[in-house]
């Protein structure tokens, strides 16, 4: 009983053939497993360790290096606000503070209903369209506090 869908498992098996070693596709597999399951649970880690012929410790060792990978659940919508230089110069810190106030949570915290989590992140590659944030993988750019409210509303109403 694997913790990911058969479709995802098949996709991993096929992609792994493109590499000369079993562990090469591990980082993408961790990310795509997290996308499906919500976080890297003990079951997912055990599954990927088996699939790549690594120990669970070796897999956890890799996980701890990469900032997009989480071993506990984030919110359904993970808000990542950049405060690095180009965004900071155009109000990125204010956008972060605005999100903290609106959501009532801080850095790496999740709302009680599990809808939103918040993280202050490093440069996401939106410098010329700053300030910017990502909600999961979606970019939201050229932000103001008002536009940020609209972004949050957009996702809030998705959960109904």
């Amino acid at each position, binding site marked *: 009983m694997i913790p990911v869908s058969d479709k995802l498992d098949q996709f991993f098996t096929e992609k792994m053939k493109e590499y000369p070693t079993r562990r090469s596709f591990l*980082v993408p597999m961790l990310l795509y497993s997290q996308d499906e399951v919500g976080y890297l649970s003990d079951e997912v880690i055990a599954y990927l360790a088996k699939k*790549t012929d690594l120990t669970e410790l070796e897999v956890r060792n890799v996980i701890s290096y990469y900032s*997009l990978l989480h071993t506990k659940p984030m919110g359904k919508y993970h808000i990542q606000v950049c405060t690095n*230089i180009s965004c900071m110069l155009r109000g990125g810190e204010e956008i972060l503070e605005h999100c903290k106030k609106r959501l009532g949570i801080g850095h790496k915290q999740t709302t009680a209903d599990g809808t939103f989590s918040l993280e202050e992140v490093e440069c996401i590659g939106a410098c*010329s369209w700053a300030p910017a944030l990502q909600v999961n993988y979606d970019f939201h750019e050229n932000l103001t506090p008002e536009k940020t409210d609209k972004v949050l509303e957009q996702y809030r109403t998705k959960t109904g």
Partner: protein
Amino acid sequence: MADLTSHPDEIKIVSSRFGKGAADIEQYLKLDGYKAVQKALTMTPDNIINEVKTSNLRGRGGAGFPTGMKWSFVPKDTAKAKYILVNGDESEPGTCKDRPILEHDPHAVIEGVIIAGLAVGAKIGFVYIRGEYRYLVDIMRKALADAYAKGFLGKNIFGSGKQFDCYWHTGAGAYEVGEESALMESLEGKRGVPRIRPPFPAVVGLWGGPTVINNVETLASVPHIILMGGQKFADFGPPKNGGTRLFCLSGHINKPGVYELPLGYPLKKMIYDVGGGIPNGRKLKAVVPGGSSTFVLTAEEAEQMNMDFDSFGKRGEFLGSGGVVILDDQTCMVKFALRVMKFYQHESCGWCIPCREGTDWLKKTLTRFHNGGGLRKDIDNIKYLAQGILGRSFCPLGDAAAIPTISIVDKWRDEFEMHLGGRPCPFDPAAKITELPVVGAH
């Protein structure tokens, strides 16, 4: 979202297909797509390399190493499999130029990879895209599938009898992985800890085989070089600094955006003409010329610089990644130095002491300093710590942390002194003192 902007001074080569739907392979073919690789299939490997050498194309990721020379380092006779690896881990603060290439012209990257493979005898390419750029991974996946479907990739490319396979790969959040040896470690399924050099990737790379690692923009430039000829590309820029490149304007500027300009373009013109100058009636204070890892320029210095590798190299400085960040006269340079150091401290892989300990110590010192707890000796100590990292770390991330810090302390010492004596930050009217100076504190 990631809107396109333009300016009459632009010379659109690598951005010539932006906004024209060229991610779709049929559209790409209508816009001279895949003509370059077909021409390259009629050339010898040495001819391809010579064309790229003639073009004076230099790495667009930040280091500016001559591309043709890098390719020529790959051994001709070897039993090991050779690889082309696209560095799509764009994460240098201020840099957002590979993103529009991957979005608007992914096939140009694929074409560049195949041509590089023909030049060095590699039959496999990997396109590594940072984890945050998921929508671009999706675009690249489709582009690769479409290229395979048309027989442009696979066992018999363009009916030539030659084989070339190209695969996509993604990261999961790590700036250091943009360093070429850490990139290989990540692609091999490990923590992105760098490798010792020598040997260099062109000789010992992925899974021990010779590997050419190039930035997205570097490879996307290659098909244009093959079609127009290396000399024509070279002539857009000054000697040894060929062609055009994408510059990302950001920060306190009226018209932020990604602009393609010739190497050697005057930075003053870039700021006031292309960028439309500084908003809110303020004046220029400082410029980050090419990503946070470069020496920060004063306004006076910036207004004299031409944007090519050697103009900076002559001064012992770096053109960098194309990320041009503009700071106005209301920017606190101490706060800026702190934010930059927070970034490097966070992204340090932790492998070597100078970087791991140095960035941590600097972040703590700069934090205390900006919060009001600074002593005069801290100013010299900040420079001393940064110099202690420079040239002593296992990979260039340590240097990248030290370089901006040293330039900010050297050029804006007066701003550091304004923060002494428990005074709040002079640029932030709402600043609160959270620490008081304590003699004997680090």
